């Protein structure tokens, strides 16, 4: 087991224990909820209807190109539970381990929380306004001094169609065809 895993305060025994409870209440709800609250038996009412006033949102897994459906349960703007979409015509209620873990892609503790800049080899928190000003100025400066082909833009096959279209437009309006993405691969 890697160093990171052994240090992260969740050992295999604990994970298995959680999994056992997960089996009782549906894997995703246990894995998705706050760990401290989850490691106890669920009561009958909870098994039946844990979030009586929740909103259910149909959405699509963000991992691979199969396009599996999933159902997110939201309470007061918080994603509390995830279920596979049993009647989705492509995924047919199936999920791989990544798709089943979708809820934690949003709430994971390793997410970036604010803009950062590397200054003399150290990460520094900066404001969005600062970030936009510094980056915008530099892009303008590179364009003025060396021409628009001094920039390279790399887009994504992990953003929406609309965003992807606007990434392509952004490069064109900046003035370069130096725009590409991993979709080539």
């Amino acid at each position: 087991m890697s160093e990171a895993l052994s240090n992260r305060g969740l050992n295999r025994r604990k994970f298995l224990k959680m999994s056992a409870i997960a089996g009782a209440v549906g894997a995703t709800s246990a894995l998705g909820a706050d760990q401290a609250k989850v490691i106890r038996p669920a009561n009958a009412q909870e098994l039946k209807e844990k979030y009586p006033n929740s909103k259910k949102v149909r959405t699509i897994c963000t991992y691979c190109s199969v396009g599996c459906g999933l159902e997110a349960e939201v309470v007061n703007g918080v994603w509390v539970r995830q279920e596979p979409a049993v009647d989705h015509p492509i995924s047919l209620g199936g999920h791989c381990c990544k798709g089943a873990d979708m809820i934690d892609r949003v709430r994971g503790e390793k997410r970036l929380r604010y803009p950062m800049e590397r200054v003399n080899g150290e990460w520094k928190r900066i404001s969005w306004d600062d970030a936009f000003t510094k980056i915008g100025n530099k892009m303008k400066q590179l364009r003025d001094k060396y021409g628009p082909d001094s920039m390279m833009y790399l887009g994504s096959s992990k953003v929406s169609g609309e965003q992807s279209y606007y990434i392509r437009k952004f490069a064109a309006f900046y003035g370069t065809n130096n725009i590409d993405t991993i979709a080539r691969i």
Partner: protein
Amino acid sequence: MANTLGYGGMTNHLGDIQNSKCVFIIGANPAVAHPVGMVHILRAKELGAKIISVDPHYSRTATKADLYARIRPGTDIAFMYGMIRYIIKNNLHDKEYIKNRVYGFEETIKEAEHYTPEVVEDITGVPAKLMIEITETMARAKPATLIYNQGLTQHSVGTGNTRQTAILQLLLGNLGKPGGGCNILRGHDNVQGASDMSNLAHSLPGYYGLSEGAWKYFCNNWKVDYKWMQSRFKTPEMLHKTGYSVATWRFGVLEEKNAKNNSGTMIRGMMNIGSGLSSISLTDVTKKAMEKLELCVIVDPYVNDMAAIADMKNDLFMLPAASQIETSGTVTATNRATQWRNQVIEPMYECKTDHEILFELAKRIGFYDEMVRAMGDGKGNFKWPEDATREYTQAIRSIGLQGVTPERLKAQSDNWHMFDTKTLRGKGPFKGEYFGLPWPCWSEKHTGTPILYNIDAPVMEGGMGFRTRWTPTAPNGESLLSEVALEGTKSGVKGHDHITAANIEALTGVKLTDKEKEIVKGKTWSTDTSNILVDKALAAGLCPFGNGKARTHVWEWIDQVPKHREPLHSPRPDLIAKYPTYKDKENHYRAFIQYESRQNEKVWAKEFPMQLLTGRLVSHLGTGTESRAAIYLAEIAPEPLLEIHPDKGLELGLRDGDMVWIYGTNGLRIKVKSKFSLRVGYDTASMPYTFSGVFQGESIVGRYPKGLEPYALGEGSNTIISYGFDIVTTTPETKCTLCRIEKA
């Protein structure tokens, strides 16, 4: 693929695989890379289909196969020529289909003649008997489907590989049929969408290219002046020059000789929006390039691993992106089908959506007003994402997106239980639609196209021939138009050119009004935004892009028919003279790219006697930026393991689980744990490429922002993957790597 059939996308869809009698999988491992897609393959198997796997690695997919061939990496073209030759010699090809729908087969037959079973066995390492059994099984199954993935594309001959799959399926008459097709299973969730939007250095959106006509068309759609757009570029000529690719830009930072291809400048700044940079080979080159940049902006919900691998002291910005669950919009799956992805929650923390970030930067640089002019009232009042959806679908007619609307997609999403899993056809109010409106979807009344090139369906239900993407006549004078009509064509027209203002009346027999004539003047099916040309064609039962023949002979390419060429780093130096690689390329996506000079630099196999295979794990996607930072997924696969044959392990003095150094042809080395396995052959080893956090044996965790390093850490194979790029696309040759393994 696009140069043979007309389009580059997956021809059929996952559910349709259940209609297959034989599933031929070459260079793909769906059990691991597309686990839920694999369900459809297994259902086909339950229904009696034979499964064939051709792969150097006995993958999880291969374990489900009836026939498995362990092929030497980089010899797929030769293998398929062996099949093609056998099919022709034994009269197993579909002669009528070829006569009616295929151009240039004589050239294929001529080339295939060389590949006798013995020659193929020598090149590929697959016993002739097994190759013949595989061919018999596939050729006699009607229909048979072919599945491939990056095992075929990531080669110096990657484009030849994918063409060869199409040629094989054309020969058997399996293209354009339910249960048939060439089914590429692509990687990321919106990889087809990103291709369609052309985040690609060689084209504007929709594969329109970079010609003057293409730019004028898009300037018109974007409501900006063409002259103004020209003024944005260094010189007007630069509008039409293919840019640096995701693989070659690094040479634009590091090698001064490339500046002449890049309007005289080096690359000095880079902005990366959600792309896994370390999934490209030569991680050390990316690292060096980044360290030289004056500006590097990385937009990602997690720490992109290159931000830590590159030791940048300054000028590096990391912007926290909202995930796709925290915004809404379209996502196009591997089968060209688009779904509406609903927003579940607002962006967490200070995260911003990718478009907000772009908009804000455009404001600072000074082109925001122009950039959003095509949405809403044109003055900056618009509704995201719907107005952007309409903007791109109404512009991209080349792949028929005009019938895709936010309203139709949302209605489908709310009613996804109303669609058949095997055909994707809707029921009840959706009976006139296929799920996801797979492109082309020619109008709001069109069903979408679940199966490309199917002439047995009328055009309004997704029927079409092959695209007449080329001149209607080949250089040798032969017609490239189909000899059979599309089902339901009214006017008795068989093959025909693509629809233009000039030929619409003659082809459809309908007279245009003077007003209509004025609107469509000088336009074609893909540039007429009024849709008049397309609508008239549809009414006459004609496919807007024409009804042509597929071409197995691409006269304008170096390899007019696919040719076996040894990888740049070949384990068989004795074959290089007979099957040499290409000449070096001076300006390949703006960079000088080596081929023969690299292949002949030395006898690589002497120093590096083993081949390294790389692939995926179920629990990690791409570089693992997200999945290795996921606590439960990290638990499943916490570190990379090198699969090595026990006999080889013994020879190297290893015990199962020992740490080893793998030395690459670029002079670098990585340190990983070994795992004895019979999945690999004696001369090959295999490892996942999805790790990072360790670079050449040293931990780089200290370069992550404190606490944000992934849970699962390890060496990434791309640090030592051999140099090499596809001759057409510059896709890295990650699948043909030589290495040397030593006990650590």
